[in-house]
């Protein structure tokens, strides 16, 4: 099926830390679902670096902004992620 939650997150384009439900809830693609309504995106996104809906820079996590050019974005799978700037502990 075309999962109503499926957004366009492409490995190597968006940051490797962006997460959404359809990455964990696996479904069968079925474009036939579009007989009943037009495409839409209800997905909520979060960052696995911060465990929140905001990235390490404090800005929202979304596919359109979690891309190259954003300081905290990591798109190279060979690059070790930098430690999160927050989550300091004492």
């Amino acid at each position: 099926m075309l999962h109503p939650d499926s957004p366009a997150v492409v490995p190597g384009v968006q940051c490797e830390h962006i997460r959404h439900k359809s990455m964990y809830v696996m479904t069968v693609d079925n474009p036939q679902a579009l007989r009943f309504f037009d495409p839409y995106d209800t997905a909520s996104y979060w960052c696995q670096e911060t465990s929140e809906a905001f990235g390490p820079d404090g800005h929202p996590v979304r596919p359109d902004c979690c891309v190259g050019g954003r300081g905290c974005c990591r798109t190279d799978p060979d690059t070790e992620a930098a430690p999160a700037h927050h989550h300091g502990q004492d």
Partner: protein
Amino acid sequence: MAEETMQQPPAANPNEPSANAKKYAWTVPPAKTAILSHRVERVDGPAKVSGAARYTYDINRPGMLWARAIRSPHPHAKIVEIDFSAAKQAPGVRGVLAWKDPGAEVMYQGDVVAAVAADSEDHARDAARLVKITYETLPFSVREASSKDPATPKIFATGNTRPGQATDVGDVAAAFKSAAHVYEATYDTQVITHVCLETHGAVCEWTGDKLTAWVTTQGVHGVRQQLAAALKIPEANVRVICEYMGGGFGSKIAADASVVIPARLALVTGAPVKMMFDRKEEHLDTGNRPSAFSKVRAGVSADGKCVAFEAETWGTGGAGQGAQFPLPYIYQFANRKRAHLDVYINAGNQRPMRAPGHPQGCFATEVLMDELADLVKMDPLEFRLKNLPPTAPDAMWGEYFKIGAKKFGWDKRRATGEGGKGHLRTGMGVSACQWGGGGRAGNAHVDILPDGSVVVKVGTQDIGTGARTVVGIVAADTLGVPLSTVKAQIGDTDLPFAGASGGSTTTAGISPAIRIAAGRAKEALLARLAPSLGGDASKLEIVNGRVQVKGGGKSLTWKAACKLLGQEPISIDNAWEPGLSSVNTSGVQFAEVTVDTETGIVKVDRVLAIQDCGLVIDTLTAESQVYGGVISSINFALFEDRLLDRRTGQMVNPNMEHYLLASIADVPKVEVMLMNMPERGVIGIGEPPTVPTASAIANAVRNATGATLRSLPLHPHRVLAALEAHKAGRKA
């Protein structure tokens, strides 16, 4: 309460079946099966009602500490300083943690800033109050209208709004010109929160460099991956356990602060740490269903065909997340155009909530359909039948509307506004739903042990819907043994991988793997037994727990047969394969209400839910899903509403006293008709039944009173205002 399951004609399955799927195809139930599709009680029911079932909330470890988060009281502010000095001196405090650093911004009331761990829950709360955080408050907006206003200062770096996916199909302008009637109205639904009975949280314990986390989650394997990434440790060093969980509804898929904070504090303090959110934290910071506003213009032909649709929609998913929804929903407008705007406010972010987007789109569309039906002077059901997609195995609304109308007594429905005399008026409404479902992520391991035990291991989790029972039924039915013979092991990352439980995918994700693994295990067992029972495995069968030669001859009890395995059990693994599951479900619901026109109180008298979900594994738990979905949608229709104060940015009802939910007295008689479609394979039923009830209720109120309710929830003041507007001849 429930009807017998009803057989449907064979239906297409879009998945090309694998060789194993063909070999182990489902037996068409229920006539030819012992338990598949029957009414089977939950195997863990006694554990749940006796309190023996251990939820994350029940986990307590030796030497365990309690953690408490410190959250922003402001809707938008910059953190200037975090001072832990007093908290560190407080009794019982063992560790503190800055979740955000000075300089970072908090974007809503309840945004986590820091946490403490202490030797008791009370000490943790006391210490949390002693953490001194200095903020620089910043401008905020907690209303969609305010954030949409260009005069409002930019609160979010990327802007206060963002356009969503747009639609432009056909020739909308020409279609409106050709329409006999053009109608305009605005519909809206509110933000509601998940209100999981078991709040978010975890118990985390390190043994050397290995972490065990008991988490109330919808996906143990997903949480393992996320925890490992957040802590920068190998996934192999993390074990996540969720034996039982008290509701997630989509909000417990991410490994959020409720999981990562106790893991970090456990590392710092060297002790197990438990952190469970309280009700206020749940409302503020564990997700919600976005609001949805739809300013609609629709055109209809004189004979009742929907020809044109144009909508401007918007909604808020909180501080940076989207709020889209399908519109129009199900009914066919050949020419349509839509623009959508996601609006950001300073409030907690949305998370998936049971059928994301569908209840919102369904409400706007279904109330519009009733209004259009009146415009062309047609019965609302006839009008719907005229505008549905063609009937197909995954598009059965037309059939279900007809079946439901007969069953519900739709012929007794009176015309709009003629719901009786006096202050109590009754009316009927109807609505439809769609959902995909159809998972593909399940692996199963089946052991047949020499003492006759059967152990089925699947790394799924039971989010309260009966997964443990489903695992047992599929294995027992395939093997031909009683359900009590099978022990289902789930809820642990030490078990074979399965996907998260969301989107009505669990049963379709795990059942094929179990079916094939159990089928192969049965074959292996019969091959081992053949020499003792006549030498030909193909002539053996297992019926009601007895291994026998087909057509009569030698036979053995299950236990006696398994004893012949000696010290070598049967042990089989299998993954999900296509062909035993499918996608796309359809359903309709009818509602009857009584409206007190003096008080504005709406009482739902009865609901009829007709729902398919492919092959029904357990009629009883499938019906339970429908009951739960209907009740949840009654909450959406009549009670729930997250209220934010526009002056302070605070949620004014972050509790279960003023955030209303249905009581037992508010739950009507609910009739469920499951439309069993075994030929389609397993699909899933968690989401669809919660979609249409609210709009069916709103339409029933309209039928009873003549007043159209275009905004949820239908709180008494809103009903009274709509009645007043109707009386005055204006739109509410």
